[in-house]
Every structure is written in structure tokens, then in C-alpha cells.
């Protein structure tokens, strides 16, 4: 057993209203630069829909993620190392998306709005941010936002392919949901495995996947490798960029910008401990529908003394373990089993999980007798507006059973809380049938519905004082180019000597000569 800690996220899709605040604040923080205009480290897709980039889930086209080869061993779908060399893919990557699969970024010719009064109302025309020329807009960020009922979004969504034909065409049965997406910070990251230069890596401390900009040589295999298409190519620096999980904030114990600003409070961040030795074995589970379970089996109980001992031995610090014990992720994914990985069948072991949405059926069914006869929710879930098959294709490799169980649980929790707050009787045995108790239902309700800041975000600090000479940085960090802006860099060495047990007299003698400070 090799214990590693992973920072991960759960998004409660039941509460996502598709407002794009996460995307906008993320963009303002990370990708409002030339070369990065088209990148959305976080984006929100309307489902069913084509997604961003177009049809990113169609792995027969983009060749992302892993597959099992004939011997049942893991192999990158885009081809092994030898295959990349021998087929000259390094000169031309056949599976890489191009700009039009995302969209060509543009701005507007705002100057025309400020001229003299003219006969016709002036119009600001779209201007490409790459070529600077006027352009005709036929694709853009969230081009199919809220258009889930249209033929185009139905037809082009790969998740719709296994769904009965009658749902597809029947406008009255159309459905819609939102899917916010970011980098999954996978346990078995295909982008990392694809990177020839070794620029992409997983942080040992918290599992965040980053691109080392100094090492990146722009070979672009990461873009193909990532099945979620969450590694982007900056056309100006000619290097790869991706979601950083806002690591500078995480290191300070703060949530990512997308989570912090989420108005629906749908996002949860926490640590989870997992067994790194068994990751490959878990990814080699041949049955797609069992991959969710095999990933679940990797997670370790942070309260198990044996796990704690091993974690400490493997270099996980105590604060991280304590945070793992209070982790909302562990509670939702492992204890309550209401959160699921996005497309586990890509075999990357993604670590941004989703609580499937429930609302549409409840309005239809909840009406009169649901509190009295809560078992009615069991047939109701099957009749849900968002087909369980669709959610299963999205979140469980086609395993409808596990999705249904989660939805039963969420629905039952609602019924229980409604009965409780309206003073009606509720038979606790009904809770038992979905694996809840009165306490666990109440605590799940608190976590999902009340969603207090401190319950949503349980993030260990990075203990920077152990990693950097913080004495030197005090008052000067970020002003490296400015000579004399901070005195700490000059005095830091003295503080360190004092900490190491050197007497002040000796430090004085070493640093001052005849009353003059030696710098």
C-alpha cells in the first residue's frame, strides 16, 4: 500500500443553474491573456449538447484516454510510445483538435460606436483576436447554451447514442441539464503519460496536475491524451496550459476561484486518501460498468489507524490526514455513494465527481401523496425526465443501477426532510431501504442543501514554511525584480541561523564587522 493524498472536487448538479459565474471568474483569473482567449479552464455545458470542444466525448475521433490492448493492459488510445515515433506523429498529430473545434476568439470593433452621428445606427463588428480581421461568427463559447431540445444537440451528443430512439426525436420528452467541467486531475492522467518532454506532472503532495512551462516543448500529445479535452495550446507561447486547480489558493487553504464564486454553492473541495499502488490494476478492470466501483475501491478510510500510519510513513502530513477525515468528498463519494466520476470508461480515474441531478421528476411526482407513500419514488426515478441511461452514460460507464440508487437516496432524503419540517409522520424504515438513517439523512441534507462554506471546503494548507524560506520572502514576495523593496531577503539568513541554534552573539560577529553590517 502506498498512500497518497488527492485534492478533489464534487459538483452537485442538482443545484447547478448554468449561470457561468465559475467560467467567467476562472477566465478573469487565468486565461485573459493573448494566446489564451479561446481557453476555458472551466466551462459549463448544456446537456444534451455538442460540448466544448465540439463532440469532445467522441473518443473514436479524438482518441483521448486509455484503452485496454489485446493483452488486457492499459494503453493510450492515441497510440503507444513506439507508435508515436514510428508513425511520425511527432511531426503531425492526427488526433489533435484544431481551433475551429473550440472557436476562433474575437473582440468587437468598439471604436465605431464612438464616432460622429450617422444616418444608420453604428454596429460594432466582430474582429478575430488572432488575425485581427473582421469575421463572420458561426461558433463561439457556449454556442448551444440552453438549446438542449434542438436536433443538433441531440444528434451530436455521443451520450445519446445508447438511448432509445423515441426519446431522441420527441420534443415533448426533451430534457436539459448543466454540466460544469474542469480538469479532472486524474489519478491515472493520460495527459501526463502522453507528454514526451516530461513537462506534465502530478504534484506528489496533493495530486494537482500541472504543466511545467519551462519544460514544455509544445509536442501537443497532452491535448490528444486528455479525453476531457482540458489541456489547451497557447498559440502565442506555443506551449500547453491547463486548469491549475488554483493551486496558489489551495496552498493557502482557500477553495478554487470557480468554487469560491459559485452562486449555487454546488461545489465541494476536500482531500481523499488513495492507494497509489493499485491504480493501474484498478484501471485495467475490463468491464466499463465496473470501473466506477474499482475506482471507489482505491479510496482509503482516513480513520483507519493502519491507513494513518502508512500515510505518515509515505509522507502525507497530519493536517492533510485530519482534513481527509472531515472531507466532504469522502462523505459523498465513498460513504453515501451519491457522487460519480465523469466518464470512468476513459480509465483515467478522474477526481472531479458529480452528484446526478434529480429535480425534474420530483415536480411531476412529488405532489399529493409522496410523503404518505414514499415508495412511489422508486417507479418515479425510472420515469425521470432526464433518462437514467443518459446519466449512467455520463457518470458511471453505463451502470444505471448505481445512479438509480443515488437518486433514490437523494429523493428519499428530500421526502424525509419535507415531512420533518412540515411536522408530518415519516416511517424511518423507508430511509433504511435506501441506506439512510435519520441522522445521516439530516447530515446529508445539511451538506447538500444548507452547504455551509466550512462544510463545503475542507482544504489543508501546504505548510509553505517547510518548503520555502518564508523569512526571506516576508514583505518581498512578488517584488523580486525590485532591489531594496524588502529587507527580509537580507535578514532571512540571520533568522535561519538563529533558528538553527546559533547564538545572537555569533550571528552578530559574523554579520557585522567593526560595527558595519556585511551584506
Amino acid at each position, binding site marked *: 500500500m502506498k498512500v497518497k493524498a488527492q485534492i478533489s472536487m464534487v459538483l452537485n448538479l442538482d443545484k447547478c443553474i448554468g449561470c457561468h459565474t465559475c467560467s467567467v471568474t476562472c477566465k478573469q483569473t487565468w486565461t485573459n491573456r493573448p494566446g489564451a482567449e479561446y481557453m476555458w479552464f472551466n466551462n459549463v455545458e448544456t446537456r444534451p449538447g455538442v460540448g466544448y470542444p465540439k463532440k469532445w466525448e467522441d473518443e473514436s475521433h479524438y482518441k483521448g484516454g486509455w484503452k485496454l490492448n489485446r493483452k488486457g493492459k492499459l494503453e493510450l488510445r492515441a497510440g503507444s510510445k513506439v507508435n508515436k515515433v514510428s508513425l511520425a506523429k511527432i511531426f503531425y498529430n492526427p488526433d489533435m483538435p*484544431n481551433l475551429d473545434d473550440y472557436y476562433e476568439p474575437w473582440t468587437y470593433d468598439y471604436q465605431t460606436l464612438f464616432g460622429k452621428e450617422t444616418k444608420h445606427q453604428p454596429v460594432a463588428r466582430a474582429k478575430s483576436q488572432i488575425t485581427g480581421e473582421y469575421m463572420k461568427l458561426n461558433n463561439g463559447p457556449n454556442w448551444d447554451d440552453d438549446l438542449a431540445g434542438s436536433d443538433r444537440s441531440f444528434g451530436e451528443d455521443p451520450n445519446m447514442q445508447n438511448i432509445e430512439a423515441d426519446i431522441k426525436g420527441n420534443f415533448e420528452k426533451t430534457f436539459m441539464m448543466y454540466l460544469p467541467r474542469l480538469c479532472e486531475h486524474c489519478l491515472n492522467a493520460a495527459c*501526463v503519460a502522453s507528454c514526451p518532454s*516530461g513537462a506534465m506532472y502530478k504534484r506528489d503532495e496533493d495530486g494537482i496536475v500541472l504543466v511545467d512551462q*519551462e519544460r514544455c516543448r509544445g509536442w501537443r500529445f497532452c491535448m490528444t491524451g486528455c479525453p476531457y479535452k482540458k489541456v489547451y495550446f497557447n498559440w502565442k507561447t506555443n506551449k500547453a496550459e491547463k486548469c491549475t486547480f488554483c493551486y496558489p489558493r489551495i496552498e493557502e487553504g482557500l477553495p478554487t476561484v470557480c468554487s469560491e464564486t459559485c452562486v449555487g454553492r454546488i461545489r465541494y473541495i476536500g482531500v481523499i486518501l488513495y492507494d497509489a499502488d493499485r491504480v493501474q490494476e484498478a484501471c485495467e478492470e475490463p468491464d466499463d460498468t465496473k470501473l466506477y466501483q474499482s475506482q471507489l475501491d482505491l479510496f482509503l478510510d482516513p480513520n483507519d489507524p493502519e491507513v494513518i500510519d502508512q500515510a505518515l510513513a509515505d509522507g502525507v*502530513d*497530519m493536517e492533510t490526514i485530519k482534513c481527509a477525515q472531515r472531507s466532504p468528498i469522502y462523505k459523498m463519494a465513498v460513504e453515501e455513494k451519491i457522487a460519480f466520476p465523469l466518464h470512468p470508461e476513459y480509465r483515467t480515474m478522474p477526481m472531479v465527481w458529480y452528484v446526478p441531478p434529480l429535480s425534474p421528476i420530483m415536480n411531476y411526482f412529488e405532489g399529493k401523496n409522496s410523503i404518505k407513500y414514499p415508495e412511489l419514488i422508486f417507479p418515479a426515478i425510472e420515469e425521470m425526465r432526464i433518462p437514467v441511461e443518459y446519466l449512467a452514460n455520463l457518470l458511471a460507464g453505463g451502470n444505471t443501477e448505481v445512479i438509480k440508487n443515488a437518486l433514490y437516496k437523494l429523493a428519499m432524503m428530500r421526502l424525509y426532510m419535507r415531512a420533518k419540517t412540515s411536522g408530518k409522520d415519516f416511517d424511518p424504515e423507508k430511509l433504511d431501504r435506501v441506506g439512510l438513517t435519520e441522522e445521516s439523512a439530516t447530515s446529508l441534507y445539511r451538506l447538500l442543501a444548507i452547504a455551509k462554506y466550512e462544510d463545503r471546503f475542507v482544504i489543508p494548507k501546504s505548510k509553505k514554511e517547510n518548503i520555502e524560506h518564508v523569512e526571506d520572502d516576508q514583505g518581498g514576495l512578488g517584488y523580486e525584480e525590485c532591489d531594496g523593496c524588502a529587507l527580509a531577503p537580507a535578514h532571512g539568513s540571520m533568522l535561519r541561523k538563529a533558528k538553527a541554534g546559533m547564538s545572537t552573539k555569533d550571528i552578530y560577529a559574523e554579520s557585522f564587522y567593526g560595527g558595519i553590517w556585511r551584506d
Partner: protein
Amino acid sequence: MEDIGSFLLWCVFPYLALGSFVFGTIIRFTFFRDTITAKSSELLEKKLLMIGSILFHVGIIFVFFGHVIGVLIPKAFTDWLGIPNEIYHIGALVMGGIAGFMALAGMLILSHRRFANKRVFKTSSFSDLVVDLAFLVVIVLGLAASLGEGLFLHPEFNYRLNLSVWARQLFYFRPDFHLMLQVPIVFRIHVICGLLIFAFFPYTRLIHALTLPWQYLFRSPEVYRRKPNIRGDHNRG
């Protein structure tokens, strides 16, 4: 006076060019490491790149090794192996010709793409354009020299008797410029252009050729990195 010109051209200039190559490479790798990239524009245009890039790269790699063989292996060695000059010459012409035309075709497509495709052109730096044209020129000159001169104008000319000797002399710092005076003009211009490419090589996108990711073949798929712990204790908290 003419001698001084030739001396500068064939005994000084090559060292300046190669010196610039070595110096630039060291500087780039030590101080500007983060600027080294393959500078791909595949994101902006894909179709022409496919044919152009593969043709050019495969062609130019064969051309490069052909030059290495032609320059570094003395005629005496192939004679000793018993390879007649005619056979060697025809072999070199055929293989070099195929590789050369591949590189040329690739370069023509890539140049068309770089100058005619708006996205690619607008995102090109000055050095990208220079590199593009320089390669086009040097490949055309190379083909003109080996095929035009070698087949039609001066079929009796054998570069291995003078040009290659001079090139090898460069490596032990005794270049004799008189050897180069026997060489037809097209060859000479080709050599100068080639040396110029070496001279600006490390300052341009060409540097990516020196960062071939061979380590990839030997490393494990997943890469973990940790910030160094200056306190040396893991169980903190």
C-alpha cells in the same frame, strides 16, 4: 586580395557560423530554456500541415544524415570497402534526390501555408518567416548543386575530393580555402547558406530539433513531483 576574401569566406566565416551555433545553443539552454518549443501552429491549420510537415521533416532528416555521410566519410574508406565511385555517386544522387525532393515539396507546402494562411501568417514572428525562406533557398540550391551540376553541367566534378576534405579540415582547424576554389559556384552558395542556417539556428524555432524527447521512451507513464522540503521532516502538522 582575392585570397583574403576567400580566406575570410572559407576559413573564418565557417567558424563564426559554427561558433554562433554553439554559443547560441548554450545561451538558449541556460538562460532562455523556457522559450524553447516546437512552435507548432497545428492548432491554427491542420490539413496542409499534415502533408507539408511530414514530407519536410522526413526528407530533411534523411538529407541531414546524407550530408553527414557524404562529408565525414573519406573517399579512401569507401574505396577500401570496394565501392566504386560511380555506384557511390549514383546511390547518393538517387537517395539524396528523393530525400531532397521530399523536403522541397514539404517546404513548398509549408511556405505556402505560412504566407497564405492568415491565421498562420499573423501569428508568425519575423524569424519564423526568415527560417522558412532560408530553408526553401538552401534546399533549392542543394538540389541544383547535386542534380544540376552533378548530372548536367559538371558531371566530372567530385565533391568528395575537395568540398568534403575542406569540411573535415574545419574540424581539426586547418581549413585550406584553395580546395573550395575548385568547387562550382552553386555548391559554394549552398555551403554558405547552410552555414548561415547553422548560425541562426539556436536563436530561432529550429532549436526544437535539439530537444528530442528521447527520455520519453524510457520513463514511467505517470510523473510525480514534489516541492523540496527544506526542513527535511515529512510528518509535519
